[in-house]
């Protein structure tokens, strides 16, 4: 299958008062269509920085020093290059950690979905907006999509809000979805549901998924491949099974040992 996303020797630095701080160093990553790649690492290892770099949402004091990010063969990020506005929300969808706060509290779900559709689908009709909004909520396995469409975020449960946030990221049918710790704030049951949902989305739509988490167990359940990060570097990458069963690095072994039921 074709390569969807490729990060090649990516190095990213933050400019601080005391000097430059390297956040990512020589990071390689590859995602194919229909594949789920997990990025795992302890807090501060650079997972979010990597995810945000791909969609061009780095902080103002952060910039790309070396390497590149390619999407379906086109360079979107490189030193001094930022073409992410062409792909953001259309070819790449992103889901953030805190779903309850990633929806605008003043807008109905319907309005937020319509806004994204109108932005990315040229000349879309009102009927088509409604049809696709209902369709994506059904894909999210939401039982009564028309009620959810008419709701404001505060009228929905946390799990529903999370699924709406995912719906907003996939309604434009992006080829790649990035999920940054998007299940961390959920209880275990809801988390399982959301993870299952991602699996079906990937299988049904053939998208690629970059799944960022600090939870190695969760990653092993869901992902095809796992990239382990530490201190802004990739310390281990490979098939989920082999990373878990035969970790090559001490760091990965320690991450594994931190899970009570493992070893």
């Amino acid at each position, binding site marked *: 299958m074709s390569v969807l996303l490729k990060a090649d020797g990516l190095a990213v630095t933050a400019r601080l008062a005391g000097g430059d701080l390297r956040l990512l160093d020589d990071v390689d990553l590859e995602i194919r269509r229909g594949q789920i790649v997990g990025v795992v690492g302890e807090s501060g290892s650079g997972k979010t920085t990597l995810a945000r770099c791909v*969609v061009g949402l780095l902080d103002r004091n952060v910039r790309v020093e070396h390497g590149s990010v390619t999407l379906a063969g086109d360079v979107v990020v490189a030193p001094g290059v930022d073409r992410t506005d062409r792909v*953001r*929300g259309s070819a790449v969808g992103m889901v953030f950690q805190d779903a309850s706060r990633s929806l605008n509290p003043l807008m109905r779900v319907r309005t937020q979905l319509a*806004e994204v559709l109108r932005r990315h689908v040229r000349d879309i009709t009102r009927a088509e907006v409604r049809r696709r909004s209902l369709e994506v909520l059904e894909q999210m396995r939401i039982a009564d999509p028309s009620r959810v469409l008419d709701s*404001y975020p505060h009228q929905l449960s946390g799990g529903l809000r999370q699924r709406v946030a995912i719906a*907003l*990221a996939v309604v*434009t049918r992006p080829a790649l979805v990035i999920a940054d710790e998007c299940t961390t704030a959920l209880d275990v049951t809801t988390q399982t549901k959301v993870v299952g949902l991602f699996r079906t989305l990937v299988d049904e739509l053939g998208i690629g998924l970059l799944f960022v988490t600090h939870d190695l167990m969760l990653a092993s359940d869901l992902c095809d491949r796992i990239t382990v990060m530490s201190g802004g570097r990739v310390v281990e990458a490979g098939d989920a099974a082999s990373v878990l069963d035969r970790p090559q690095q001490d760091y990965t072994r320690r991450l594994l040992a931190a899970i009570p039921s493992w070893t």
Partner: protein
Amino acid sequence: MKASTVRRVGSRLASLFASLLIALSLAFLLGRLSGDPTATILGPLAPPEQREALRHELGLDLPLVVQYFDYLRGILTGDLGQSLQFYQSNTSMIADRLPYTLQLVAAGMGLAVCVGVPLGVLAATREGTWWDRAASTVALLGQSVPVFWFGMMLVVLFAVKLGWLPAGQSGTPKHLILPALTMSVYPMAHIARLTRASMSEALAEPYIDSARARGLGNRRVVWRHAFANAMMPILTIVVLQTGILLSGAVAVEYVYSWPGLGQLALQAIQFRDFPLVQAIVVFGALVFVLLNLVVDVLHSIVDPRVR
């Protein structure tokens, strides 16, 4: 409407009504505490019989409770008493002056909003840049300049030195420019600073990042998402400032001899015309309560969470 909404609206109305009643009672008591008005009207040498007759005429010989209920009944029927110096109904005098003050406040606040809001948004979207620092400095200056002094300076420059605009009085739109400009400075600065703070808070919210991640344009993210969420404190201040200015923009009206409510209040105080002072205070309290209701209604329109 939900039962909880009805309950909240009910308790809000009750508390507004209570504060109105307190304000009205205070205005009444202050009027009675400020000394015997018959001495002011007739002079200290008037014979006691004459003062007694006037006290009877003004109803001051009645028990305080009776006077109080008469006063409240008057307010309900739109009768705010008689002025001691103009021998006229206070209500009709306030009604005569109100259009002038309304004009001035509308122009001044309009200007304040039209400049203050964009200035604050500009500063917030370019946080930490030269733009931000410049806007913040201007706003700080605007809040610390005395209205009185600023008005004088404008008169000296535009009326006396350049002769472009009239120095005072009213009548034509030209007469409105300097007073409105003077009046707008403080609220403009206040609105700019508040917009800056409220906007930079909203821009840091996760839904802003998410909106950007969905590929929405910068203008849409800033106005439709951030500004809509930052708007409520700004609206509140605009409405309440309007209330403050409506019940007496004393300094501005004095500097420009503008025949509005502020000038009327000044005259009332100078001549110890206690019924008129009281009437203006009552009018201010009514306006304030009304505008508080406006804020509540706006809030429930803007934010579905408080409906």
